[in-house]
Every structure is written in structure tokens, then in C-alpha cells.
């Protein structure tokens, strides 16, 4: 049974009734052979397809398949040998033309032959595992024409020469090229590769090696890249016009390797025109070209990135450590912003917004901004400057843009808490002196800080705004309940919540009697409405408007600080006061008093006081008079104190110390939080976790963390493991 199943059921070809004439096969073959000759000679029109087909059919049917097949091979071979001779004979440019024409003829003939011998293709060839007619025709063509000794090298050389001529700028017959290349592809991928592609790639590599050497000696980087790009495009063009699409990757690889990869470092570091110069001169186009070309080779982009990063770090470092630049914080930050803008646009325009480049840019900025530990202060000063005066006449969107940029720098800061400290101080000054330009801008910045660093970061800043608002209401209430105060001096009090505002050592001074009476009234009013509170006066932050008349009777309104007001009021009752007398009467701290006297006696145009002896600095033995000769074009004169914009060295130390103090509880809190959830953890892990937790605010110092851990151990929050001394345990 199984045996029978395996056997394919087959109907044997019907035995023809015709008794086979022994000459039958030869006769039939003669007919077919003749037909093949006719086909090659373009004389097929008279032939009957049916007759030829029937003859071939009958030959196969009568077991003359072998004769038919070998006859075909011999006939076709002899024809191809003739063709080969005529191609060999073609001179110069005609060579390819002739080959192309013969190829077209052969193809057509082959198709016709295949059609009439179809029955053989169908039955005889599969059963004897011979090559089908069409493929046979191609193979014979390959062996007799393409690989004949007289043609093979000539063909290759001709093709390569044409390519070379095209590379040097001549126009060649691309159509013909395409046909010949197509012929090679039709003959099978191996023919195309062996007889054309591989030598082509070798010759190309040779060519570009030489050319790139020549270019790099005489061109600058930008020109070189332009040339490389053009060559690359030419090769791509060539591929689309007459090469196999699969050659594209190979040939571009050759160009990339020879023209870019081999010269990459030299290009990047080229004197006067390399990458650094492009960056300096904002050569977006050249940079874009470099990016696109280098992207093609491995390590290309990382090379660009490394050079850019090191250049950025270098210039950035110079920028933040150059003592000249540090004199003006506003300009310092502006320079940082400009630098950032510059590189942002380079990356956007030339490096197609590549993420890795943006990251490199960010990390470089982070690197050098934190090299200078005054960066947080300067950034805050920049904001202060912008919000005080810089934003006048600037549209809301522009304000947002500036603030966004500042936030971007802020993000780079490692010591965000230092920034917070300064920002708080500057904000307090702005709010109290009423100098802030736009409430909206202030608030929008706070919202930004909040999204960046969380509620905790800004809660105190927001408290400051609330205080300002409630103070306004309180003042309205105060004057409503004391209608008799309308005529005398006006007092505006801002009630500040301790803790929300930067703590200032509370130094009081003796206010003029008119004022202190008023202050007392306010105190009793305020404590009357809010029980259980304590008020203390922060005279060092206030301002006052006073009216003064000078020698020739001209009147001016002077805008001064509280301290200055106290000093000036003394002159209502005296002509001449010595420094000592002023100090005694007002009890203003020495530093502040000197500063305020200096601003009133030594600044040209604002010198409402006269001083003896005349000098730039205030001495302990100086005497002061009202300057009767004071004149000013303006009715309102604003006398600012000589404020150090930047913090002086001791102030800076103090702030730093305060920041360090503030960090301690934060570090401790972080340690306790971590230990509470982990129960036991070794030293290194604690350090890394704490650092991670506090990253958004500042970069915690490992030795400081260690100190905090020890302090917590002393206070029985943690203990050391009795066996592993590096392990800590949390004590509930």
C-alpha cells in the first residue's frame, strides 16, 4: 500500500502513431536550426511559430530532447562567437555601443528561442536538471562575450575610464552606461560584483585617497568639506543614474572613509578654519555640513562633540574666572546667556537639534558655571537688575523669555540654596524699596522656581508677597482709625513675618521725635488688632520722602533712606553737627552711618550736606553743615545710599556660613528619611542617596554628611553595627 501511495500517478505521453523516420530527428533539427539562424539575422517574420513549436514538441516527445538541447548550445555558441568578433573589432567609443546593440539583439532573439522551445523548458529541462533556455542564453553570453579574454579587461577599463572622466568633469553617455551596467546585473549579481563593482570600488578608493590628500594640503576646512560633500552627492547621483542601488552604501562608504574618516582629526583641528574657528565665527553652514558628513562615519559625531565640549569648557572657564568680568555681575550673566544663545542656535541650525549635543552643551555649562562659587549670587543680581530697571518698556513675552533664560542658568547651578538665599535678600530689598518694576514678572519667576524646585523652595518667597499685601490693608485700617493724622508726617509700615524674610540683625536707631510718636501709635493700633504679636522696627530697610528748603529759598523733595532722614532731621535744630554728635543722637551703626553721610555729602549733584574738611571719605572728626548752595534741576531728588552691589568679601563669607548652617538640618533630615525606610545601610550608600536627594538644592559635601551622621549617632538616631563598622542602623 505505502509503496503505491508514494508513486506519483502519471500518464505516459501518448505514443505517436507515426512510425519514426530514422532521419526524422535530423530533419526536424535542421528546420529548427535554420529558424534560430533566421532569428539571429532578424528574419523571423516569415517563420511559423506553430510549426517550430510543433517540431520542438515532437522532438522532445520522441526522446530527442538531448539532441535538441545540445544543438541549441552549439548553434547559440557559434553565433555568440561571431558577435564577440564584431564587438572586438569595434574601435574606441564604438565598443560599448556595439556591445549594447548586440546585447539587445541577443536578448530579443533569446526570448524568441525560448518561446518556441517552451515545451522543452517545460518538460525536458526539469527532468534532466539542465539550465533553462533563458538562463543558458545569459550564461553563454557571459562566457563568450563578457569573459572572453579579449573583451573582459577592455570592458572593465572602458567603464572605469568613463567613470573617471565623469569625475573629472566631462559629460559621458549615461544612458549607454546604464544599459551596460544593467546587462552586467542581468547576468547575475556575481558578474556585476566581480566584473565591475569590486574593481570600481578599488579604483574609487584610490582616486579619493589621492584627491583628499591634495585637497587637505591646500584647502581650509570649510572648502574641504564643501568638496567632500559635492563628491558624495556626485557618487549618489551616479548610483541613481546607472549603478545598482545596492552599490550606494558601498561607494559612499569608500568616499566617507577616504575623504572624511581618514582626515577627521586633521579637519577638526585645522588651524584657522577648524571646528573651533567655525564655532567662534558662527559658521552655521559649514558646521551643518561638518555635522552631516561626520555623521556618516563612526566616531564622527563624538569627535565633533568632544572638541566642542572642551572648547566650551575652556572658554567658559575663562569667562567665569576672569577677574575683569567678575566686576559687573549683570554683564557676567549676560555673557553667559549670550554664550548659551550662541551655542543653542548652532545646535539648532547646524546640528539638527541633536540631543547628544544639547546634553554636551548642558553638561559643559554646568561644569563651568559651578567653577565660580559666586555664580548663584550673580545670577540673582542679574535678575535683580532686570526686575529693577531692565524690564521697562519691554513687552511681556520678552520678559518671559529673559526669565526663562535665567531659569535655564539656574538649572545648571549645583548650589541652588545659595541662589535662594541671595534671591531672597534681593527680593526683600526690591519689595521694601518699592523698586520692583512688575509684580507680574516677579510672580512669574516665582512660579518658575516653584515648578523647578518645589513648593518648599518658594514658600518663603511667596510669604514675602503676602506680607506686602496685608501691610497695605493694615495701613489703610490704621489711617481709617486715626483720622487726625492727615496733616503731619505720613508713616507707612510694612509688617514682615519673621522667618519669611532674610534675617537682618535688628539694629534700631533713634527716630526723630515726630516719627517715633507716630510709630508708637501704629504699634498700639497693630497690637490692638493682633494680640500676642511682637513688633520690632527694622529701620535699616526703610525709605522716606522729606521736603527741604535751601539757602535761596528753593524747595526740593528728597527721597532718602530712613537713616538719612534721621540725620537730616537733626539739622532742623542745628547749623553744624560733628560726626560724634550725629552718632550719639541717632545711634546708627558706624558702617551704615558712614555710608549714609558719604552719600549725602560726597556725591556730586546730591550733596545736600557740606562737610569739613572736604574729602572723599568720612572721618570720625568731620563736621557737617547744610549745603545752602545745593541746586538741582529736578524738584524731586533721589539720594541713594552708596550700596555695594556685589557683596564684599566678609559679607560673602557670612552668607556662605549661613548657607552652610542651613544645610545641616537639611542633610540630617535627608539621612533620617533614608534610614527610616532602609533601616540599615552602609556608609557609601547613605552618602550617595543623600547626595541624590539633595541634588535639586545643592551638592552635599561627603565630609559634611559624615559629620551629620556622627552627630545623629550621638543623639541616638542611628547606631553603628557592632560587627560591620561601616553599617549604620536606624534606631526607632
Amino acid at each position, binding site marked *: 500500500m505505502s509503496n503505491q501511495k508514494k508513486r506519483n500517478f502519471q500518464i505516459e505521453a501518448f505514443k505517436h502513431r507515426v512510425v519514426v523516420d530514422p532521419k526524422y530527428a535530423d530533419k526536424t533539427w535542421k528546420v529548427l536550426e535554420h529558424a534560430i539562424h533566421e532569428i539571429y539575422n532578424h528574419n*523571423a517574420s516569415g517563420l511559423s*511559430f*506553430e510549426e517550430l513549436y510543433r517540431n520542438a514538441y515532437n522532438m522532445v516527445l520522441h526522446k530527442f530532447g538531448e539532441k535538441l538541447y545540445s544543438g541549441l548550445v552549439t548553434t547559440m555558441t557559434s553565433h555568440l562567437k561571431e558577435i564577440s568578433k564584431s564587438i572586438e573589432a569595434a574601435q574606441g567609443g564604438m565598443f560599448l555601443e556595439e556591445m549594447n546593440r548586440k546585447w539587445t539583439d541577443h536578448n530579443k532573439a533569446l*526570448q524568441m528561442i525560448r518561446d*518556441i522551445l517552451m*515545451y522543452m523548458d517545460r518538460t525536458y529541462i526539469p527532468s534532466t536538471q539542465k539550465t533553462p533556455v533563458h538562463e543558458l542564453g545569459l550564461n553563454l553570453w557571459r562566457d563568450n562575450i563578457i569573459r572572453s579574454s579579449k573583451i573582459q579587461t577592455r570592458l572593465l577599463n572602458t567603464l572605469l575610464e568613463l567613470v573617471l572622466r565623469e569625475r573629472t568633469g566631462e559629460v559621458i553617455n549615461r544612458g549607454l552606461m546604464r544599459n551596460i551596467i544593467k546587462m552586467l546585473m542581468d547576468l547575475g549579481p556575481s558578474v556585476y560584483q566581480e566584473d565591475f563593482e569590486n574593481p570600481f570600488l578599488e579604483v574609487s578608493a584610490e582616486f579619493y585617497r589621492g584627491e583628499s590628500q591634495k585637497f587637505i594640503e591646500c584647502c581650509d576646512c570649510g572648502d574641504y568639506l564643501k568638496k567632500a560633500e559635492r563628491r558624495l552627492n556626485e557618487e549618489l547621483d551616479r548610483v541613481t543614474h546607472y549603478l545598482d542601488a545596492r552599490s550606494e552604501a558601498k561607494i559612499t562608504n569608500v568616499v566617507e572613509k577616504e575623504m572624511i574618516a581618514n582626515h577627521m582629526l586633521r579637519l577638526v583641528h585645522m588651524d584657522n578654519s577648524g571646528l573651533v574657528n567655525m564655532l567662534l565665527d558662527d559658521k552655521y553652514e559649514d558646521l551643518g555640513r561638518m555635522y552631516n558628513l561626520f555623521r556618516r562615519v563612526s566616531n564622527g559625531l563624538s569627535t565633533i562633540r568632544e572638541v566642542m565640549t572642551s572648547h566650551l569648557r575652556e572658554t567658559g572657564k575663562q569667562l567665569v574666572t576672569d577677574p575683569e568680568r567678575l566686576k559687573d555681575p549683570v554683564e557676567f550673566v549676560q555673557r553667559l546667556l549670550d554664550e548659551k544663545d550662541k551655542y543653542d542656535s548652532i545646535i539648532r541650525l547646524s546640528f539638527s537639534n541633536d540631543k547628544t549635543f544639547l546634553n554636551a552643551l548642558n553638561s559643559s555649562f554646568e561644569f563651568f558655571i559651578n567653577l565660580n562659587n559666586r555664580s548663584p549670587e550673580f545670577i540673582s543680581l542679574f535678575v535683580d537688575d532686570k526686575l529693577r530697571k531692565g524690564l521697562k518698556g519691554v513687552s511681556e513675552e520678552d520678559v518671559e523669555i529673559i526669565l526663562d533664560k535665567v531659569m535655564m542658568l539656574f538649572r545648571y547651578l549645583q548650589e541652588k540654596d545659595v541662589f535662594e538665599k541671595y534671591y531672597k535678600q534681593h527680593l526683600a530689598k526690591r519689595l521694601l524699596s518699592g523698586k520692583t518694576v512688575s509684580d507680574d514678572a516677579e510672580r512669574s519667576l516665582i512660579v518658575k522656581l516653584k515648578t523647578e524646585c518645589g513648593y518648599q523652595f518658594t514658600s518663603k518667597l511667596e510669604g514675602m508677597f503676602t506680607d506686602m499685601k496685608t501691610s497695605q490693608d493694615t495701613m489703610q485700617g490704621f489711617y481709617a482709625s486715626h483720622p487726625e493724622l492727615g496733616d503731619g508726617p505720613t508713616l507707612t509700615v510694612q509688617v514682615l513675618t519673621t522667618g519669611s524674610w532674610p534675617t537682618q540683625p535688628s539694629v534700631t536707631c533713634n527716630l526723630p521725635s515726630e516719627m517715633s510718636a507716630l510709630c508708637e501709635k501704629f504699634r498700639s493700633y497693630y497690637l490692638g488688632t493682633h494680640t500676642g504679636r511682637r513688633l520690632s522696627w527694622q529701620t535699616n530697610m526703610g525709605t522716606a520722602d522729606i521736603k527741604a528748603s535751601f539757602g535761596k529759598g528753593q524747595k526740593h523733595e528728597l527721597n532718602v533712606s530712613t537713616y538719612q532722614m534721621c540725620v537730616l532731621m537733626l539739622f532742623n535744630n542745628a547749623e553744624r553737627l560733628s560726626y560724634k554728635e550725629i552718632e550719639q543722637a541717632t545711634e546708627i551703626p558706624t558702617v551704615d552711618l558712614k555710608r549714609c553721610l558719604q552719600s549725602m555729602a560726597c556725591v556730586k549733584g546730591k550733596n545736600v550736606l557740606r562737610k569739613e574738611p572736604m574729602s572723599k571719605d568720612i572721618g570720625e572728626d568731620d563736621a557737617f553743615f547744610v549745603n545752602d548752595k545745593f541746586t538741582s534741576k529736578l524738584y524731586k531728588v533721589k539720594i541713594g545710599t552708596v550700596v555695594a552691589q556685589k557683596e564684599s568679601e566678609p559679607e560673602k563669607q557670612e552668607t556662605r556660613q549661613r548657607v552652610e548652617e542651613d544645610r545641616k538640618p537639611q542633610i540630617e533630615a535627608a539621612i533620617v528619611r533614608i534610614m527610616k525606610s532602609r533601616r540599615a545601610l552602609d556608609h557609601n550608600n547613605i552618602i550617595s542617596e543623600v547626595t541624590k536627594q539633595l541634588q535639586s538644592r545643592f551638592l552635599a559635601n561627603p565630609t559634611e554628611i559624615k559629620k551629620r551622621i556622627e552627630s545623629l549617632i550621638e543623639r541616638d538616631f542611628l547606631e553603628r553595627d557592632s560587627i560591620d563598622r561601616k553599617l549604620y542602623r536606624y534606631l526607632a
Partner: protein
Amino acid sequence: MRKEETVKLISAEGFEFVIHKDAAMVSQTIRNMLTSPGSFAETEHGEVTFPEISTTILEKICKYFYWNLQYASGKQTEFHIEPELVLELMMAANYLHT
């Protein structure tokens, strides 16, 4: 029926069947005859002579061509073959590659 769209099939006895080219091309052999790039006599004159196919069989074959087109377009009916024609019909089918 325009002339370019038809082909004339001639039997051994000289009977002529004029049918659509589409139908005739159901046979691979006839398709090759009519589409081969060289200008064979058949392509030029639009007629094919089959000296080894009798009129009866050629008629059946023509019927089959049309039946096949119908069948391919979804109308599935039976094609009836008289038993006495079977052998010759199969030979012709092999020849015509149908």
C-alpha cells in the same frame, strides 16, 4: 468583435474558429505565439494553424477557453466532456499547455 481583438484558429481539416484573443490566451502556447517579440507569421496574420488537431477537438477546446474565462470570473459550472474525446483532448491540452 474588432479584428485586432480576435484570433483565427484553423483545424487540421481547415475549419476556422474566430475567437477572442483573451480566450485563446488561456493556452500558454498560444499566448507565447501571440506575444513573442519577434514578428512570427502568426502574430502578423492573426491566425494559427493546428495541423494535428481535428475540428471536433478544436471546437471543444474553444468552448473550454470560454468556459475557463467564465470559471475564473466566478461562474462555476460544469464542463462536460464526451468520453470518446478524452484522450485526444488531453494530448491537445499538453500541446497547448492549457
